[in-house]
């Protein structure tokens, strides 16, 4: 990449078309997301673009609505708990699969990745019928469990990639120097795969926070998540309140991604 940037044989002017093309792609990708931001500041009852004037009316109504704030709290709780369940489980699975000498490990890995491949609706139906028997429908526990199933493959894939760059001999050395297996993992392995673990946790958070299909089946009424509530309220009316929520969600996700990026960069600087 660096070499291409400094390549003197092609001038920036001659590459202009390439830059314009990239800009067009970026607009195509981002415009639908960004268009909701100005719409959320509209005082009108309906979605309009561009807004006739600016107002915080919909934000105000959101924060004053216990239904919406309640749903937001449910979503946050579910996402945080999903991170806490899926990340340690995924790390343990990735670690075990990486160093297992058993032939079955490959099969187990495929089995654990399945939720990533199967259409979410199928997982949702399965989970619904299972939870109905276990009395877990419309509970936070049930929602977190279901979201953890969806998040686990992401964690395994990301952490496995991190472990591939890790030299397991380091853990052997640590053990020879007097560290138990757990201590060796915590002091030698974990600090070095930290960037992967951070992105895995972020993936788990977003998987849960963005999820709507499973939530439609297993979180209803007062235990509705934010996305589910957005989905159902869209059926009744299209108000700028939705745009306001979307704006908040975009901002949250963007900040999280930025934090993950900053932490990864910090790690790199430490290394070089």
């Amino acid at each position, binding site marked *: 990449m660096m070499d291409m940037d400094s390549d003197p044989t092609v001038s920036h002017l001659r590459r202009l078309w390439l830059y314009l093309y990239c800009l067009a792609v970026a607009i195509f990708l981002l415009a639908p997301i960004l268009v909701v931001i100005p719409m959320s500041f509209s005082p009108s009852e309906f979605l309009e673009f561009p807004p006739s004037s600016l107002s915080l009316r919909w934000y105000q109504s959101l924060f004053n609505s216990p239904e919406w704030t309640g749903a937001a709290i449910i979503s946050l709780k579910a996402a945080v708990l999903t991170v806490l369940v899926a990340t340690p489980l995924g790390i343990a699975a990735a670690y075990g699969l990486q160093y297992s000498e058993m032939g079955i490990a490959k099969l187990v890995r495929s089995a654990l990745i399945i939720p990533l491949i199967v259409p979410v609706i199928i997982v949702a139906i399965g989970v619904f019928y299972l939870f109905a028997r276990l009395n877990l429908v419309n509970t936070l526990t049930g929602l977190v469990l279901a979201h953890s199933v969806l998040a686990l493959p992401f964690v395994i894939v990301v952490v496995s990639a991190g472990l591939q760059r890790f030299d397991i*001999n380091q853990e*052997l050395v640590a*053990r*020879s*120097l007097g560290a*138990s297996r757990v201590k060796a993992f915590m002091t030698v392995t974990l600090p070095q795969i930290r960037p992967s673990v951070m992105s895995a946790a972020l993936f788990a958070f977003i998987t849960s926070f963005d999820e709507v299909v499973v939530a439609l089946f297993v979180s209803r009424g007062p235990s509705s998540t934010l996305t589910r509530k957005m989905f159902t309220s869209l059926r009744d009316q299209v108000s700028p309140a939705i745009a306001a929520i979307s704006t908040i969600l975009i901002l949250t996700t963007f900040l999280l991604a930025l934090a993950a990026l900053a932490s990864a960069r910090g790690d790199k600087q430490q290394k070089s």
Partner: protein
Amino acid sequence: MTSDKQTGKAGVPITIRQLVKTYGNYRALDALDLDIAGGEFLTLLGPSGSGKSTLLMAIAGFIRPDSGLLQFGATDVTRLEPHRRNIGVVFQNYALFPHMTVAQNVAYPLKLRNADKSRIDERVQWALALVKLEGFGDRSIHQLSGGQRQRVALARAVVFEPSVLLMDEPLSALDKKLREHMQIEIRRLHEKLGVTTIYVTHDQREALTMSDRIAVINHGRFAQIGAPKALYEKPASRFVAEFIGDATLLPLDAGQKQPTFRGRAVKTKETPQDNASYIVLRPEKIRLVGKEEDAGWNCFAGTLDDIVYQGESVLLSVRLEGGETLFLRQPTDQQSLAALPQRNQPVEVGLHANDTLIVPEEAA
């Protein structure tokens, strides 16, 4: 642990009895017996896949043997977890912790032992001085050269005064000059610390240079255990004769009471064993002789095939009448060079009776 600490300085003896490790049908360790004296420098030497690393990992505790006994001093450690064995291990790729500084790497085993801060600082300084890396404590691992990393790995492995020091081909990633330098350094360090050391290598010259004793291992069994000189001068089998040093082995005539080669009696200093079946010819032990040489020599007639100048010596290859090729080394002083015969000339190669070694196919 307390007994380990007392004996740490003197070096702990190691006892291995009937140690077996199998992988499926493959016997990686085939009922091994070995006694290592306290403070000894023992090298496990063998080709790749011989079981030398498996044995080292079993001593370290990373591989659990199927059966047999492993003792450090009077303590049975066969089933003891690695972190309770008080061993220092140096791996081929050093396995330094890249997220820690040099000093933090060396302090790691001390922190695990809950040493207090002043003690840790003192020991880290001592260990870094021992490997001649004073003032490198704050460096990051990425700033070190290969040789320096090797030294940090060594310092980390000895800083807590382990009972046993294990090294798995620690020098194989270094270039030749540095490797030879580090061989002497490690030797010196061993003499200073007196820790029982087991060193794994496939490099026979390295083994000869460094060891008190060498255990030659092949197919999960010991082919021969002995001091470097004994192994080189008195190999117990064809495998050892060929693996240690360069040698051409000529088969003796079968079914003869006295050893003969192509009908001619082979003169030896000692009467060879009954099952002896090969003459060992090492390049530095044989030389070109005239036909009239005295009775103390075993002579082989052949043709000079090639002359390779190698700087410190000249390597001649001689094809015998039976088609075998012998190699012999000649010094490169002017007189010797001037006396060299031409290529394709008939020559006579002599091996003195005192240097004539005869080995069996398998050790008795």
